[in-house]
């Protein structure tokens, strides 16, 4: 008995130490970094934002995983989450709403590879890394030729009247549609049927913004729209001049202004 007690006294701490040592390595390991599970591609500038977690929060707050500094984006706007069945977007009571391909997300909706997701007026294209990986040669559909003239016409310094009569155009980046401005003095952008550039989108006001010609230049002005008009990511409050490659954000739709003169 005595011997057994002595064995216990001296051996137990050592065995316990080795048990703990073996477990400690595993306990202190922590989680491996999750690989990139998907991307959000910013339609305005083509940035690919990697989704590195099973849950990614999107919002204006700094504590969100993806911070979007847009006035139309709520502090905690939405959460993208990966589940067994696929990806879901949940709207976390945002003010301006979340849309998947123009469909408003009520509480949670499934999102598939290539879908467009709109937070407020920030437009993104969703890319599922798994789908992309399974299709190694997958390439996004080429954007249709945006304007009728050849590239030289728009990028060259010298404008030749003989090549084409058009000098300015608005291209809807989401749909690829081109609208030539040369035959107009003013041009209304909005949801109403009277608008020359009609965008049937819930976050676009009926009379959203107005383009007007002043001499050789085109000007843009917001018509007190609900979601605002953004010129190169800055919200506009007064009349602004447009220059070649300027990006207009109209209720989540990206329009590119093209001009061969300025």
């Amino acid at each position: 008995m005595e011997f057994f007690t002595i064995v216990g006294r001296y051996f137990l701490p050592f065995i316990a130490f080795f048990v703990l040592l073996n477990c400690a390595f595993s306990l202190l390991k922590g989680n491996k970094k999750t690989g990139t599970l998907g991307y959000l591609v910013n339609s305005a500038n083509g940035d690919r934002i990697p989704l590195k977690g099973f849950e990614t929060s999107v919002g204006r707050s700094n504590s969100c995983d993806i911070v979007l500094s847009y006035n139309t984006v709520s502090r905690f706007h939405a959460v993208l989450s990966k589940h067994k069945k696929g990806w879901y977007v949940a709207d976390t009571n945002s003010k301006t709403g979340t849309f998947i391909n123009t469909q408003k997300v009520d509480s949670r909706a499934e999102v598939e590879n290539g879908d467009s997701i709109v937070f407020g007026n920030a437009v993104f294209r969703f890319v599922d890394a798994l789908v992309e990986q399974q299709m190694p040669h997958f390439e996004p559909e080429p954007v249709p030729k945006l304007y009728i003239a050849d590239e030289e016409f728009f990028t060259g310094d010298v404008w030749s009247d003989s090549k084409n009569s058009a000098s300015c155009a608005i291209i809807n980046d989401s749909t690829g549609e081109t609208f030539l401005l040369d035959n107009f003095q003013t041009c209304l952008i909005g949801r109403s049927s009277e608008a020359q550039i009609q965008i049937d989108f819930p976050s676009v006001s009926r009379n959203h913004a107005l383009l007007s010609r002043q001499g050789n230049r085109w000007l843009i002005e917001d018509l007190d729209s609900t979601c605002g008009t953004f010129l190169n990511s800055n919200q506009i409050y007064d009349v602004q001049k447009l220059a070649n490659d300027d990006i207009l954000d109209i209720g989540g739709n990206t329009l590119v202004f093209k001009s061969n003169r300025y």
Partner: protein
Amino acid sequence: MTGAKWLPTLILLTAFQVLSAGQVVISKDGISKQSAIIFGLYIAIEWIYTIVSSIVRKKASPALEFVAFFLTGIGLVIVASVDEKLLKTQFVAVVIGFLCYVFLLWLISSMDRAMAMRLPMGIAAIGLLIITLALATNRNGAYNWIYIGSFSIQPSELVKVAFIFVGAAALEKLQSTRSLTQYIAFAVVCIILLFLMKDLGTALVFFFTFLILAFMRSGDIRTIILVCVAAAMGAALVVLVKSDYVIRRFSTYRHIWDDMDGSGYQQTRVLIYSVSGGLFGVGIGHGKLKNIFAATEDLVFGVLCEEWGILMGIIVILCFAFIATHSIKCAIGCRYAFYTIAAVAAGGLLLFQASLNIFGVTDFLPMTGITLPFISRGGSSAISCWSLIAFIKAADNRTWLGSRYHTEVVE
């Protein structure tokens, strides 16, 4: 630690348990059959679980459960060494706790299921506390025990699990403002009920858990509301301090040697006997501290140091530190915010509770009557500790690799 890699550790753990249990099973009077069967069953559960787990969750590491089994095993041996009659009840409680762990891990494996359980959990928790308040009888100054026949349960221990569950579910990323407000209301009701029970220790543990949950939800105006509620709870604690029972404990604090046969009796004996145990202890069942009131509950760390030695005491402390560190390590890169919040809160709670107990009996802090997780005798405590482990386990991504609820990660 996956696949067969866990085998040497499991063998070492079994050797530890056989050697320690042997000290109480084999005595001068012969072999205690009942104890031998109980310890045999305990080790069998350990092996069956590890084997089944390694088949079902191929990539999961059983290290966390090993630590829990290790600590629980020490607790069972101490109970058997002090009073063998209590071993059976404690073992049944441990088995129930273990089953709760398995059930909870299954429950939260699906996020949809976990979210659906939020409301029933919250209602059950508040209902349990109200029933306690209505039926409880005074025990050591607090009204936190319910007696059903010969059984006694401490519902506030079980509510800890619900508190973290509801908290993590309400604070995770998907939740709206409304559910957050509901959680704040839930937390306030829980704490008020605990105050009414005059359960200072548990109220402190809840307060600390609430702080962790509030911290996990940072970067938002609502965090300030959460912290304000936490502060209000702190203030309420001060009010509670005015009760005679608490004043007596606070007056003893740092003055245990002034009245070593009165109010400082327990702590002074813990210190004296712990030192007399030395590095390797006096031998299991050969100590003197076991004759003092609450030896297997509040003073269990003293018994451990006296009979098993200071070295074992340090190893036990390290176990709690590793559990807490593991919960934080897992929280980083965890799949869902629910798991992250629940794991950190559970790990923090276990560490905080262990600290309150160990510092309490050694007079670094006032004694609060909080149990030492896994080791102290107490069925409710065993159930709550094992359930909390499920939250930490869920945060470890290895647990879910290859399981049917969670897809593989694209590297």
